[in-house]
């Protein structure tokens, strides 16, 4: 399980980095989204992997060992929403830059 997730995170981040280094803005936005997935999963995995231990308390006394770590989840939850916001912002920047420069190259002009 751990190994699978680790490899998965690695592939997400690796693909994202590859796209991040590409010249077209659309590639960069897809790359950022992929990196965001990878990073969210990475942060999430800091709480260690547990199955059937959602941090939703049952009635009665609480034994923390029965539940997974809620803090990375809280962090990732806001990260997902903020990630959406940055994607939206970047998308709009991409469109406006393409309108103003006539090019969808990340530098705003085609390489010579």
């Amino acid at each position, binding site marked *: *399980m*751990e190994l*699978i*997730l*680790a*490899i*998965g*995170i*690695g*592939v997400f*981040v*690796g693909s*994202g*980095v*590859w796209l991040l*280094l*590409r*010249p077209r803005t*659309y*590639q960069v936005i897809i*790359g950022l*989204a992929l990196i965001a997935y990878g990073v969210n999963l990475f942060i*999430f*995995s800091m*709480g*260690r*992997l547990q*199955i059937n*231990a959602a*941090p*939703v*308390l049952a009635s009665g006394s*609480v034994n*923390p060992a029965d*539940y997974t*770590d*809620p*803090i990375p989840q*809280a962090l990732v*939850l*806001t990260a*997902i*929403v903020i*990630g*959406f*916001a*940055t994607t*939206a*912002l970047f998308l*709009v920047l991409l*469109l*406006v830059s*393409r*309108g*103003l*420069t*006539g090019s*969808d190259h990340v*530098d705003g002009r085609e*390489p010579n």
Partner: protein
Amino acid sequence: MIWMIVLPFVGSAIAALLPTNARNAEAWLAGVVTLVTLILASASYPAVAAGDAIRSNIEWIPSLGLNLSLRMDGFAWLFATMISGIGFLVVLYARYYMSPEDPVPRFFSFFLAFMGAMLGVVLSGNLILLVVFWELTSVFSFLLIGYWHHNANARDGARMALTITGIGGLGLLAGVLLIGHIVGSYDLDRVLASGDLIRSHDLYVPAIVLILLGTLTKSAQFPFHFWLPNAMAAPTPVSAYLHSATMVKAGVFLMARLWPVLSGSTEWFWILGFCGMMSLALGAYFAIFQQDIKGLLAYSTISHLGLITLLLSLGSPLGAVAAIFHMVNHATFKASLFMAAGIIDHECGTRDIRRLSGLFRFMPITATLAMVASAAMAGVPLLNGFLSKEMFFAEAIETHAISVLDTAAPYVAVLASAFAVTYSIRFIHGVFFGPLPTDVPSVAPHEPPFLMRFPILLLVVACLLVGTIPALTIGPFLHTAVTSVLGARTPEYSLAIWHGFNLPLLMSIVALIAGVILYLLLKDYLSRCEEGPPFFRRLKGQRIFERFMVTVSWRWARFVDYRLGARRLQPQLRLLVTVAFVAALWPLYSRGFTPGRFTLTGADPVFAGVWVLGIVCALGAAYQAKFHRLAALILLSGAGLVTCITFVWLSAPDLAVTQLLVEIVTTVLILLGLRWLPKRVQDGPTIASAVPGARLRRFRDLAIAVSVGVGVTLIAYAVMTRTPPPTIADYFLEKAYSEGGGRNVVNVILVDFRAFDTFGEITVLAIVALTVFALLRRFRPAPDSVDSPEQQRIQTAFDEAQPDRETGETIIDYLMIPAVIMQWLFPVIIMFAAYLFFRGHDLPGGGFAAGIAMAAAFILQYMAAGTRWVEDRLRVLPVRWIGLGLLLAAFTGAGSWLFGYPFLTSHSRYVDLPLIGDMPLASAIFFDLGVFSLVVGATVLMLIALAHQSIRRHRVARTIAAADEETA
């Protein structure tokens, strides 16, 4: 006491809001503020005089030792009175000085703010707070000096003043931090009590060098003096205030304040003694040769401050007494002289001594007042300047530390005093006597209105009274101030005018006579010579400063930009990724890398299968993103879904819900954006193989990407296989229900334990949404994207070709059945959102998820029926949702103040609602409602703003390339 600082700032804010031409209202406001401050200061005198300092303490960041602590003892009181008193007089004067065309709100606003900052400096009981106010005085003096910002001299002068005093301020901050480190507290009382500790500490020398850097720059002492003459481009009321009683006095104030702690060492004596003596002598010498009255007064200020610095350097208590006395005296006569100079400028239109003469006939009263004030400046008996000068002479004769400096002191003192006499006579004789002026812009100069002259009159009377009956006027106040600084070391001193025939008196007489003779000798030369003293004319501090600034801010900046800058994003990102990679690798390399031995969760073939899909999706998206955007988007969503499944699998239902919903809106958003991107068709050999080096670059990027991926895998694996250290998670799990009143711990953390973070995050979301909206308001697409998309054109062509169809019918019929279902889903999704919202505190769900679900409900309507149809029937006002959400969240947080709890404390209980049943109702639910409302508003705003672009008529953007062609 806090009001003395708050009031000017409040007044400043009000002044800024008044209309531009409200001269009288502004003057009244500023006058009342300064007067009230003065009254507050005066009223606290009995308490201060009783011996102990008044303190007021408001906790600010107690954990860092930072408190908003104020402290007024006799010395601070003296300064506070001087600042507010002269402030009031300057306001009165400025009312008549400023011309109707000048934007007075700006002037009075900056003026009051500056006064507040200055009062803050003198009343601070904490060194850090003092530095903060110190910096504020630099900033506001910059704004005041540059008040006439259409004038290049004013801009340069302001910039220079800010640069010099700002650098000094940084030095002061560093010095104060060192002092705090030595003493262990920034509290002024504790610092003042730790003199021996500080002086014997290893860091003493760096500390005083840094602090003196701050004070000497502020007080315009050699070698930093050159900013002061350039600051004379300011309006005269500003000069009268800044360069007599406030700004430059802040430096000597602080030196006197810390005098009991820092003085007495050889380093202190040498640094201050040298700078003070140089300033004293050179300032006076330069002042003689100034043609501008204000320039003369500026150099004279440098000289007088040099005198004070020199007195403080001696380390003898009597010297400190003389220094404090001279601070007050200098403030009174210099403020009145600056005001007189302003009147002359105002009436004659010039300040050039060569062109002015014989003004006594036009303005006898002003002339008389100016004469008395200059006499005080020159140190003529029966005036206040004489008394402190006598004390200075007496100190100069004494031997304090056997050195060249000490031996030279009496001679330099007499010489500088002689110069002072010369420039004072030159000012008076040159301007008020002699033949009638012939070369003056204004034809008929006359006396100014009484109220404009009144401040000068008052100050000059003060000079006279202090000069003739010092013991009855300034005596007690000075004594309170001196005792508060020196404490038990307060020496015996006498303020009498007549001490008998002694050496200081002889020195005074010599200086007076020598000064007169010098003036007579130089008179002819001075009326012809150009600006600036002989020999030093060419060597200007200003020139050196400018040369330096050009080197730093232009040549070096260009060099660094040229060497390190790149206008291209790719190399920068490459560098960023590489640095991040190395930074992550470094600790692994130095500490060694081993995977942990934590018991693994057994691998599940289904989970593995899901991730095989996820990996394929990610790689596919990476591969297709250039030429097949839609395919890449779908693959990206696939990766998102795999993420979502992982969350479900590994006990994170909240994340899964949110991820799923965010996935939907992200996909819709990017789909909306696709239409505006250029077509790119893969045909034949790509650029990659055509451009030499491109293949190499791609290999390098691939290598970077693979290394980063492998690295992240290894780190993730290593972390996941280690036993988790104890975290605060247990605390949250245990307290979530008992104190947060919710069973869903993630939600409780978000809306209760860490609600302030969430508050920050929703604010970010709101800002992003508004930015997106603002960017799209003036959206100009590229020329090739302006036409309707190809599919729409085909559909329209089809409609036009068929005789029985009307244009646009195909679009209306498109996806008819799904569209109807989507429309019907509207209430269902809203219900679902409500459900997610209400269960959020106890079960997976919550404001974020519900908000996005709600936004999805709106966006589905747009997709199903088209933008126009929806907006005819439904008014979504996303900006109001955002505002409402933010306010609700803030008010819920602030609500706990009403009950005396800190911001965002929540209260919870269960409420039995009809129909719904037993429901948890924490006050956090209102916070969550705010989150919900804001998320709805932000998401909908972004999506609608983008969707709207398709139905707008677009003007083609003038691309940069097109603009170039036009100009060519």
